[in-house]
């Protein structure tokens, strides 16, 4: 199963564990960390951009600074690229063993055609877990609508795949906790998500590092949902399509 965290933020972390270290933890556990910095009239700031870039590097993922309008497309593109890249790494390890070449580029066009076909098939069928980790600090509030839209857009792309895909959405800070809270628990039918953020209490602090650690725990299964969340998930399954999700309080 391929696992990735997509961190969506608009600034710098200011408390807790260094997020670059947290991303390195994720990478060593085989979880890719991608970062999207969203700007909306203005700048993410030099230090914000530098931090975003460093987190992505440490997390083995990519970093993009985009406007709100590009957010949905970027989330979707990153997810797809990460899947492709991870598969490529695995395939290239095999190539080294069997053909003694270390990259797809070095294969002849005929061999390349076969290998890429296998990679494409894998990309379409491999099971996938994507955790969207949302910076919900005060300055992000006006951007959450776009984030919701990006979640829906990603779910469309994932549901079209033949392989199993699961999405979850986490946000930080979670009240006065430094860890991240679960806004949407793992779901295989993400298009049923109606509203991602309701009654979200915005805080000034940005504990990006601890949040990445929470997401890492959640994606690797080290942390399970709280009892309350399980209950909500259960009630949703019991009555799909009703207004229950509208009242989903995080």
């Amino acid at each position, binding site marked *: 199963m391929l696992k990735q965290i997509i961190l969506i933020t608009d600034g710098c972390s200011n408390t807790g564990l260094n997020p670059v270290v947290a991303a390195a933890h994720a990478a060593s556990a085989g979880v890719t960390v991608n970062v999207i910095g969203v700007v909306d009239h203005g700048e993410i700031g030099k230090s914000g951009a530098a931090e975003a870039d460093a987190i992505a590097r440490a997390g083995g993922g990519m970093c993009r600074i985009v406007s709100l309008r590009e957010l949905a*497309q970027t989330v979707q593109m990153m997810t797809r690229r990460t899947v492709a890249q991870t598969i490529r790494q695995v395939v290239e390890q095999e190539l080294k063993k069997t053909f003694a070449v270390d990259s797809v*580029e070095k294969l002849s066009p005929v061999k390349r055609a076969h290998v890429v076909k296998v*990679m*494409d098939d894998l990309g379409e069928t491999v099971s996938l877990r994507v955790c969207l980790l949302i910076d919900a600090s005060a300055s992000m509030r006006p951007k959450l609508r776009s984030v919701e*839209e990006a979640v829906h857009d990603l779910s*469309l792309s994932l549901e*079209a795949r033949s392989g199993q895909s699961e999405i979850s959405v986490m946000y930080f800070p979670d009240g006065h906790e430094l860890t991240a809270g679960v806004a949407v628990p793992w779901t295989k039918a993400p298009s049923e998500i109606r509203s991602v953020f309701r009654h979200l209490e915005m805080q000034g602090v940005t504990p990006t590092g601890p949040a990445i650690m929470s997401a890492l725990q959640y994606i690797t299964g080290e942390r399970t949902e709280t009892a309350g969340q399980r209950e909500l998930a259960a009630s949703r399954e019991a009555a799909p399509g009703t207004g229950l999700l509208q009242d989903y309080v995080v």
Partner: protein
Amino acid sequence: MLPGDRIVGRWNGRSYRVEQKLGEGANGQVYLVTGAAGLCALKLGYSAVDLQSEINGLMELRFGTGNSGSYVLDTDDVTLGGQEYPYYVMRYVQGVTPSRFLAENGMDWYPVIGWRLLTKLSELHDRGYIFGDLKSDNILVSGYGTTELIDYGGLTRFGKAVRQYTELYDRGYWRAGPRSADAGYDLFAFAVLCLELADSGGRLALLAKDPERSATKLVRLADQLPACAVVAPVLKACLTGGLRSAEEARAAWRRCVYAAGADRAEVHRSPPAALTAVLAGTFILSVIAFGAALYWSIS
């Protein structure tokens, strides 16, 4: 690459001279080149994997049923400025984008281009693929409305996740259905494209920015744009998933266009614009001529 540059393939050794840059797609840049077989288009890829994936799709089209010949004439790598680039060579297609063609030749050609596009889509669908990334930039029109699809980066086998798309034309973006390959996906993009071509006031672009965008709003737009009034029923069916295949859309399109041709004779009798009168007159004459020809050929 600049005009006059030479490209010599690393594996096959074929050589090409660059004439000019034709355009740029998501996976690479396209150049007009002269090879041993004359003028061709050469796509230089940014990534060997992405380009190969596109080539694989095109090769399957070639070896599939049907006889549209080979899309891919050569695939190879070239070293430019110390870096390896993958490329493939294809048939050179001349033409301009549909919007430019219509601006230069008049909206009378609108139904012709739509018809030809549906024909192209229907051919692909018959082979089990959708085009995926249907948009104005990926279409070239020339001569008497000859329409060709270019840039097959979105080519997707039926049932798979659409490989490449552009938001404005994407069924998912308009919340009108899944992002998986079926005939309806291409037809939806086709309808948006037709609205775009009929829309001189930028109304489609406004709808696309609306957070409450939906297929219903596109349907309303189809009713409001005079330039696409004739085919509005087909466009609406494409937008709402009311058609099962491009073939069905083609039949519906033809019905609308032919019926409108007949209607123009009616317009003639009510106070007409001078041009309408002339057109209607011409149409009646051609109907009479056709009838006469038919009668003559039967007898």
